[in-house]
């Protein structure tokens, strides 16, 4: 019991976002009737699963000290491929092609970052524009609708009373948490982001390592595209716009540093859920969605400010 309390305490100190999540739950449960319903929580999980899936992969890339701005566009491409191709090659193959597109684009981004030495921000900014262009060229600016009802049915299905998409997200989050915290690849992710020269000196193959993480990021973005299109039974070329911003927001809220080397899946999960609860709670309170945008932006900046205040070492700091 003592260790549990100890763990809870260290969780709060290292990941204050969970304190924020708890505060949100208390506030919303006191101010609205249906917030604490089981059904509502399922809702929140399904709603956050899209951004959540993107954030799982992106967390690896950001701990690595890189960034991927192209995830929103990759999501749209995967969704369009999966929905458009299913009438000709069937759902399983179409979904596979969609997911593969994400992996391939991730590999391309990673290879370019590794081999050219161009900053990941610029590489993926280019990809963000280019892949979106690819989506528009491919779709000819049309939306696609799932012809097979089984596809859309999957998006609304449940296993043992839990929505399949929510379950998928939670299971994958657990898996990614395990990889990041327990596997050699996961541990090296911190090493590469925390001190790249030390990682190179220690013989870690930093280039291929980063490529693998970009592929993981691409895969999860594509998977988010597929699950989102099953929820809608359709895919539009504008799908996933600004999602990269939401995912980065969630990850930063969860304590991952932009400079790399620090962060966790548990933190990212906290960030994703915080955003989900805020949106859901304000929705129940009938706050117009416009205000949510303002509040989210403000919270992002506030967290950055608080983080700096907490982590600064006043004595060592110069007045610059």
């Amino acid at each position, binding site marked *: 019991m003592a260790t549990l309390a100890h763990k809870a305490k260290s969780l709060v100190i290292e990941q204050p976002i969970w304190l924020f999540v708890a505060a949100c739950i208390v506030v919303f449960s006191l101010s609205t009737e249906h917030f604490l319903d089981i059904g509502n929580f399922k809702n929140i999980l399904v709603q956050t699963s899209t951004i959540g899936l993107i954030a799982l992969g992106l967390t690896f890339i950001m701990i690595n000290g890189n960034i991927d701005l192209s995830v929103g566009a990759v999501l749209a491409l995967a969704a369009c491929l999966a929905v458009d191709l299913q009438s000709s090659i069937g759902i399983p193959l179409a979904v596979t092609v969609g997911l593969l597109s994400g992996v391939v684009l991730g590999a391309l981004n990673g290879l370019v970052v590794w081999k050219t030495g161009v900053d990941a921000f610029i590489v993926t900014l280019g990809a963000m524009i280019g892949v979106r262009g690819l989506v528009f060229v491919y779709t000819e600016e049309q939306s696609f609708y799932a012809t097979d009802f089984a596809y859309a049915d999957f998006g609304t299905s449940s296993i043992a009373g839990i929505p399949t998409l929510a379950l998928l997200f939670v299971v994958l989050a657990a898996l990614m948490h395990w990889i990041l915290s327990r596997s050699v690849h996961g541990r090296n992710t911190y090493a590469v982001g925390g001190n790249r020269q030390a990682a190179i000196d220690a013989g870690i193959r930093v280039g291929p390592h980063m490529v693998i993480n970009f592929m993981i990021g691409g895969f999860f973005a594509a998977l988010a595209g597929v699950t989102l299109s099953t929820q809608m039974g359709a895919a539009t070329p504008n799908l996933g716009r600004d999602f990269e911003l939401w995912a980065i927001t969630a990850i930063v809220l969860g304590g991952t540093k*932009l400079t790399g080397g620090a962060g966790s899946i548990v933190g990212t999960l906290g960030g994703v859920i915080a955003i989900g609860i805020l949106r859901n709670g304000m929705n129940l309170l009938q706050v117009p969605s416009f205000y949510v945008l303002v509040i989210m932006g403000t919270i992002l900046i506030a967290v950055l400010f608080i983080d700096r205040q907490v982590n600064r070492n006043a004595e060592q700091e110069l007045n610059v």
Partner: protein
Amino acid sequence: MSDTISEIKSGGEASLAKKYSQLLARQGILVAFVLFLVVFSIFSDRFLSTDNFMTVIRQASIIGTIAIGVTIVVIGGNLDLSVGSLLSFCTVLVVDLHDKIGPTGAIGLMLVFALLIGAINGYLIGYLKLNSLIVTLGMLSAIQGITLIYTGGQNVDIQNQEGTWFAFFGRGYLWGIAVPVLIFLGLALIAEFVLKATTYGRKVFSVGGNPAAAVFSGLRRNRMVFSTYLLSAFTTACAAIILGSRVMGSQNNVGQGYELLVLAGVILGGTSLLGGSGSITRTIIGVLILSFIQNGLLLLGYPYYAQWLVTWAVIILAVWLDIASTRGKIFTSFS
């Protein structure tokens, strides 16, 4: 003594060779640009006409005007991703206020709000030293929300489109040249002068090039960074005037995605995201390259969005070329 002199000479020669290769790398972009022009003009008669050129520059004027301010921010060592949202906000505001308080009041009030938002960015990043990427990302979201709250989700437009001089900024001509082009190039000229020939410009380069050394030399980093955000808010507001005046109305998300196209132009021009280098002229070349690619591909009958694919390749190639020339190697050496 003679040893040191010969060493310095050879050092000078080495750096001269480096300088040439860097020049070549930079001209590589121009060479590619000229190649584009040649290919396009072979396949399309209309491409190489004065009319078409003016159209291209006119189309580039909104992104170009914003890019002037963003270039200054980037030279100062920071990023501004909030300009797209800010463009929406300013355009909506100036268009909506036009019918309520008249064009002069509308422009004045809009400028005040734009500078206020720039000041918030500048305070957070300059004085509180928060990361500019995250701050302007947060501001992007917040300003988008404010715009939607202000409009209630509706689009706005100007009722009396014929009888207002407000149309001058987007639709007018002066000495046979479109006013947006004049505003864009005029601001660019002023900004280039300020950056290259004034103490202010020198301080921006110093602060962006090495913030610690600038502070150790008695410059005020916080104040300089603050001011760069005021400038980017100002040029964005000017772009909003052009946009609102040309369309005589505004969608509430009209500026969505502009921050990326602006940044693409700035990067293509060779301004380093690390700060301390770059120029307005080069940013203009970058923006124009993007605009010509768009125009050329359209004239050749490619779909509108094909330009984005080309942009992707051009941005990475341009930055790669620049890095490779300073590195002296095409690829990185770590594995």
